[in-house]
């Protein structure tokens, strides 16, 4: 390689006088892949997307879900997506910004969705995640709860669950707490 370095050395001097152009900002492979995901988004009718930092920051965006059926009909739920440069090696980080009474979403906004953690694979994409989030509202899952109490109510008394959801959606956080969420999950009895 030394011969090449010698050539380069000469070129560098020439370039210095000619005012060479250095490449500007680097786009990571993750950003490019995200660009593809976003440009191919096929959002369900119930879902919209926004980019708080403008058109050139795709790594941070918000998904707004307005379920058109099920317990959560009429609600509006905002999720923030944070995508790292290692995407799709790493899954996007998704949090629910809206306080919600839901068996698979806790009051801190953690979302229990398998493809966001243990089942994430680089072949999945943003569309898959958005689809998964929509599913959480049409088919809340009482078998893998994050909000234990909500899950128990959903399983044992769907009518009460429905009422709790309505109350929580009508009144925001206060009501979510008021429907009686205990903070410490209890052990499942056999």
């Amino acid at each position, binding site marked *: *390689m030394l011969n090449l370095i010698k050539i380069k050395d000469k070129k560098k001097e020439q370039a210095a006088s000619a005012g060479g152009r250095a490449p500007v900002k680097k786009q990571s492979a993750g950003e490019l892949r995200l*660009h593809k995901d976003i440009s191919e*988004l096929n959002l369900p009718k119930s879902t919209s997307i926004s980019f708080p930092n403008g058109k*050139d920051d795709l790594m941070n965006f918000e998904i707004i879900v307005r379920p058109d059926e099920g317990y959560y009909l009429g609600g509006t739920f905002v999720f923030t997506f944070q995508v790292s440069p290692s995407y799709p090696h790493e*899954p996007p980080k998704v949090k629910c910004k809206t306080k919600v009474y839901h068996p698979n979403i806790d009051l801190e906004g953690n979302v229990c969705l398998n493809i966001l953690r243990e089942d*994430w694979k680089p072949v999945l994409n943003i569309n898959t995640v958005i689809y998964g989030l929509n599913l959480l509202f049409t088919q809340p899952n009482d078998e893998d709860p*994050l909000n234990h109490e909500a899950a128990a109510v959903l399983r044992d008394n769907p009518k009460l669950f429905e009422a709790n959801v309505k109350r929580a959606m009508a009144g925001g956080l206060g009501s979510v707490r008021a429907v009686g969420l205990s903070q410490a999950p209890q052990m499942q009895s056999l």
Partner: protein
Amino acid sequence: MASPDEESPAPTEPERWRDLDMLLSRPGNLVDANFDPSPGLRDTLGSLVEVLVVGAGGLGCELLKDLALSGFKNLHVIDMDTIDVSNLNRQFLFRVQDVGKSKAEVAAERVMERVSGVNIVPHFCRIEDKEIDFYSQFSIIVLGLDSIEARSYINSVACGFLEYDSDDKPIPETLKPMVDGGTEGFKGHARVIVPGSTPCFECNIWLFPPQVKFPLCTLAETPRTAAHCIEYAHLIKWNEVHPGKHFDADDAEHMQWIYSEALKRAELFGISGVTYSFTQGVVKNIIPAIASTNAIVSAACALEALKLISGCSKTVSNYLTYNGLDGTHINVSEFVRDKDCLVCGPGTLIELDTSSTLSEFIKMLEEHPKLLMSRASVTHEGENLYMQSPEVLEQMTRPNLGVPMFELLKGAARATVHVTGMAENNGKKVSSLRKLRVAFKGVEKNSKMDTTESF
């Protein structure tokens, strides 16, 4: 590394280099085609070649020493970290008194003290803080990192310098080779990346499997292991008890809190194995590290750098793995490039008139025989020029459609553009992401200054 101290002077210079000079001054049969042996080769190497070492940790300390003792005289080292006590079992350039100081600065100083004639410039900052131009001065970049993200960044920078000629052949003067090392316990790897001829980091990123993550509902409902209890405290309980307070893994109080919460939870569920040390290991994702593996992998990397630059022997082709758990296993695999790699691949050359608009450009892609891409979205160096979807972005980028590409690409004679759309592959239309090299007809390469002025 022979060590000088006050009473016994360092070996005299010619003596120290006699062995290396034998290798660099004599012709051989198993050498690179461009090897030009001469008694002055080491001097040429020392004066002409600038080497960047990325990372001044376990591998970085070893690399700096090995490279300095391999005849390289102009070195730079970049690392944003400061020295921690737990580094001292392997990062041999650091002492207890150095704890808290910049790794790059201390490492540079220590090696310069011991190897006369070597100049090492430390950079105490993040790799992203440097202008891209900073990286252009180096003939070779040697990586001693422990993160995929950082490797990926340096890889994209180094590959970004690579230019291809009109036959899609890499232009040799634009090559910026990398040597990358990594270790974990008794295992490690060393690889040589010559962009455009051997696979780059992105070509086979699948070599690094994603980290295992526990399901949140397991943590919340059915914890079974000590790690589950620790991750519960870390990922769920912390935010619940400290809303809005950022968790800092380097804050001993924070770590202590996680530990005691995890312990409480483990006791509640009858789970054993939560210790403070294990808590740190899980929360910080600590990778065990020992001096010997780092020494072995760094030595392999430094040797490859020496051979690659001087041509004094063949180089590894192209990925070496070391495993010392059961015996000493060295395996060399020859991985192949991804010819469509977005980072190191040539991409498709598109020639445009300076007057061509973005919308004309998108139309061209539909008809281009190598692409046949419809519904293209276009991005350039982090700027989204046009997005077909979603609607919000389409609206924001629509005004660009009528603007000449030459203007959107800021008057550069050549530029790299990435496009996404439906392209033909084996007769079927599939969604594709492609790299394009855009060249403007009749614009000289270094004419940016003149052209921008005319806008």
